[in-house]
């Protein structure tokens, strides 16, 4: 069974799957044309697998922020693969591309896009640079976990940015979970200490900790984050069970340095790729996954409470290039019309 056939079957599967696919379509694909017709369009555009085809593919991927190194590697692999399998027809090369991209992403490892829960209290620490959507993601994640029947508590660890505590408070109210907080400007490590204690005594299932946004090259702030991490591990052995790095899909190559530095300081276990409902693709996560072995666990597809979806590499990869090719086509059409 070809890759796309598999994908198609997946889309046509159960209702829940359908719903999440809709979200992806809304978020990622934007255009409402059906999946099959899209493939047909692609095939129609390129009848031959030649250098032009590769070049355009390369550009599409570069424009999705996949990054030069990864794109070059991928192109080499693809050329080899196409030659080996003797693919001439574009309808077949599509599947080779997607397979290869997913392969680069997964690099033979098992896909982990779920939260790892501990036996007792599970602590999730949210980290990232300024303005990527940490607090919003926490709100959505709390909603999601609550719907799964978990009891959730939030910790307002961003004591620095004006209005950050209030922002988390509003999310707490919306979702219907409590928020442990202190006054603005207080020591974030102290907030965490309080929150862990509260979580233990209330016997909740999950504690999600917000932290202030910080640029990864600010040594003092990264040290502060390390301290927060330390306090949590001291209070709950094995915690934080998940350290989620929020990455803005609009971010370019700097995301790699972000992932690397945050991983060094807090042992990041997964990425939440936010703002994927825009036109940016966040293609750098491919490189992050293959170089740093950090998987994407969730994607943010909007501002509503249920706009957080588990990451699906196949759907993501499809969105990476399919829409890019579409847009390219559209632009050409517009040009021709003028």
């Amino acid at each position, binding site marked *: 069974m070809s890759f796309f056939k598999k994908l198609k079957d997946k889309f046509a599967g159960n209702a829940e799957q359908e719903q999440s696919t809709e979200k992806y379509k809304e978020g990622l694909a934007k255009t409402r044309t059906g999946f099959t017709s899209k493939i047909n369009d692609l095939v129609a555009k390129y009848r031959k697998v030649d250098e032009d085809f590769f070049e355009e593919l390369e550009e599409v991927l570069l424009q999705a922020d996949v990054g030069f190194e990864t794109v070059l590697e991928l192109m080499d692999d693809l050329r080899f693969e196409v030659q080996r399998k003797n693919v001439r027809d574009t309808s077949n090369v599509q599947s080779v591309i997607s397979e290869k991209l997913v392969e680069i992403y997964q690099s033979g490892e098992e896909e982990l896009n779920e939260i790892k829960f501990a036996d007792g209290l599970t602590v999730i620490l949210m980290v990232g640079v300024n303005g990527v959507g940490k607090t919003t993601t926490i709100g959505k994640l709390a909603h999601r976990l609550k719907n799964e029947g978990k009891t959730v508590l939030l910790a307002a660890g961003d004591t620095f940015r*004006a*209005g950050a505590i209030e922002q988390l*408070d509003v999310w707490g109210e919306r979702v219907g979970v409590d928020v442990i907080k202190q006054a*603005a400007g207080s020591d974030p490590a102290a907030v965490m200490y309080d929150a862990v204690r509260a979580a233990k005594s209330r016997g909740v299932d999950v504690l999600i900790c917000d932290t202030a946004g910080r640029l990864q090259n600010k040594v003092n702030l990264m040290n502060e984050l390390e301290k927060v991490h330390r306090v949590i591990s001291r209070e709950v052995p094995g915690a934080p069970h998940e350290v989620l790095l929020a990455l803005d899909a609009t971010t*370019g190559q700097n995301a790699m340095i972000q992932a690397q530095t945050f991983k060094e300081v807090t042992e990041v276990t997964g990425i939440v790729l936010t*703002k994927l409902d825009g036109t940016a693709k966040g293609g750098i996560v491919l490189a992050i996954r293959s170089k740093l072995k950090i998987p994407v666990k969730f994607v943010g597809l909007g501002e509503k409470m249920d706009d957080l979806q588990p990451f699906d590499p196949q759907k993501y990869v499809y969105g990476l290039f399919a829409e890019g090719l579409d847009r390219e086509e559209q632009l050409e059409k517009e040009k021709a019309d003028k």
Partner: protein
Amino acid sequence: MAFEGLAERLQGTMTKIKGKGKVSEADVKDMMREVRFALIEADVNLKVVKEFVKKVSERAAGSDVMESLTPGQQVVKIVKDELTELMGGEQSKINFSTKQPTVIMMVGLQGAGKTTTTGKLAGLLRKKHNRKPLLVAADVYRPAAVQQLETIGKQLTIPVFSKGTDISPVDIARQAIEHAKAEHLDTVIIDTAGRLHIDENLMQELKDIRSIKEPDEIFLVVDAMTGQDAVNVAQSFDEAIGISGVVLTKLDGDTRGGAALSIRTVTQKPIKFVGMGEKMDALDVFHPERMASRILGMGDMLSLIEKAQTNVDEEKAKQLEEKFRTSSFTFDDFLEQLAQVKQMGPLDEILKMLPGANKIKGLENAKVDESQMGRVEAIIYSMTTQEKTTPEIINANRKKRIARGSGTSIQDVNRLLKQFEDMKKMMKQMSGMNTKKGKKKMSMPGLDQLFK
């Protein structure tokens, strides 16, 4: 995982050319490919890169590169000049309305830093232009965005106009402008909600706010870390509401900031300000040349020099020089020096501004331990006045006392004393050199070996 700068990238091509004595067209082509790589890694949009490389190629194919003895440096120079020129033009001039009040609109994607920049801009307008700003909280969507602006207003003691979140941003803006007129506040800065450029409803809302009173400035606030998508964002905002300038935020990070070039190219609108930190006064004027260096990974020497200039007292520097010459440099002077270095900001940030710093082995991940500086200070503070001026008298007993007093060990004290002596020796040599107008050869032992 710092990316290679253009200069380093070109080095590879250069060694190939070196033996040949002549630069061929193919060599230029090779170099242009490196330019392309470097720019894409700096997040300049692919289409912008293509256009740019084409333009530079034409210049590079001209005689100045082909006949140059140092073609690599020539290419770097041409690229940098072109970049600077592209991003250049009018800077931080702000259009003020002759009819009060001046209206400034802040727009952009979510999380770009609009609210923070709104506060910084108001502070700057008050300080440098003597304006009386009014901040308008028109972000009714994001939770606590209104509180955020209110808090910032309180920090700056600048009035904030807010009407909660149950009323439309258009009405808020309209009332705010009336309010400003009544209160004789001459500059209204409207903080709008972050929105996706493809969200038609919200883009319409911006048009509606705009039509209340034609804003004198519409600033697009863009995160400096933005990747390829920067062109789409800038173009969409510009087409929908017509931006007048750009503010680039989070430039205190370690991103190359290629988005600056992309945005400038597609909108032709000037980048007026850059956000350089989380403090309310961290809004600087945009310098095209520095941005060009940064995009090319060539370090930011100018900013460093400027930082030193603003923080180092000229008069004190002269006194210090005199002390070096006469060898009367004491621990008190040393303390003062430490304080000045500290004022320049975190040391590792300063290090990062040095060109090629990421190339020096061991320095690429250099994290300067500032607590070490604190320890040095503590040791000096534990000395008596006499010990500070004549450290020769510090004997074993005194060392023990100093170590106890500063909470360090005798070894720490010994190390500092040794360092201080070495420093004095070195300074004497260096200042001696200066007075003789550099006629004497540098007589630092082993220095020539150091760079081999």
